[in-house]
């Protein structure tokens, strides 16, 4: 089933706040094998000018993925989640995600297209603090393999 083009441009309400914990950052950094002191050591992070330890550049996906479920599983959109693969990912940072941040995500359906029989969905996640300070924007391209209609 092709994706519903009526959902192009749809903006979902802001997610519940995600509180970024120090130990979550450390756990994530260890999981990617990265012992950069900025992720582990408060003093080292502060020496670089950060308020607290910072998260690796790909960490915001943990936050955006959770929030974008509202779009991925929106029944009207018609995405077959059993057939999706991650096609592309991009981040533009205003500043690094920092321990203690309370982040909210606004998910927007930015593009819907079809290529080679696949449905291709681009979502944009605008991630800011609960106080409205922009932190990072993430774009995810999700490909549902072989789900587009032949006529598309």
């Amino acid at each position, binding site marked *: 089933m092709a994706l519903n083009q009526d959902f192009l441009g749809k903006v979902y309400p802001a997610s519940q706040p995600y509180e970024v914990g120090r130990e*979550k950052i450390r756990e994530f950094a260890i999981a990617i094998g*990265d012992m950069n002191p900025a992720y582990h050591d408060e003093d080292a992070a502060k*020496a*670089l000018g950060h308020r607290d330890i910072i998260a690796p550049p*790909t960490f915001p996906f943990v936050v955006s993925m959770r929030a974008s479920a509202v779009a991925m599983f929106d029944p009207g959109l018609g995405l077959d989640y059993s057939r999706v693969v991650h096609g*592309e*990912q991009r*981040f*533009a*940072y205003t500043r690094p995600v920092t321990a203690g941040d309370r982040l909210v995500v606004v998910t927007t359906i930015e593009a819907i297209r079809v290529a080679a029989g696949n449905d291709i969905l681009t979502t944009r996640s605008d991630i800011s603090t609960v106080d409205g300070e922009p932190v990072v924007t993430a774009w995810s391209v999700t490909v549902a393999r072989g789900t587009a209609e032949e006529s598309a």
Partner: protein
Amino acid sequence: MTATVSYADVEVGTALPPLSVNVQRVNLVMYCGASGDFNPIHWNQRFAQAVGLPDVIAHGMFTMASACRVVTNWVGDPGAVVEYGVRFTRPVVVPDDDTGAVIEVSAVVDEKRDDGTVRVTVTATSEGQTVLGRAQAVVRLA
């Protein structure tokens, strides 16, 4: 932001120190837990093969994170990264043995911008094949 690399010292063509990342099943299990992405294609061989994959594959985001380490190791302060994006072109297949897979990562500065940033293009391969496409980071240097 306190990058340890100076803009003045970098030229188009400057190569960053490369990195070789060993990936074993335990690393994927750790990444499942740390990221919250428990898709069974990343830990269950039966499931992965049932959906047509050769074996368990690494999360694309794990590969993206591994590739980024070349940039953040080089620049010192990961907060100096202002943009980072990739295409996932081929999965990293991680066998259930004592060696796992290896991701080879290299990178080169391919553009100096007037605003004090440089663009770095990253190459990541596994089993001799590229696994990321158009992998680029923009970094603000000192």
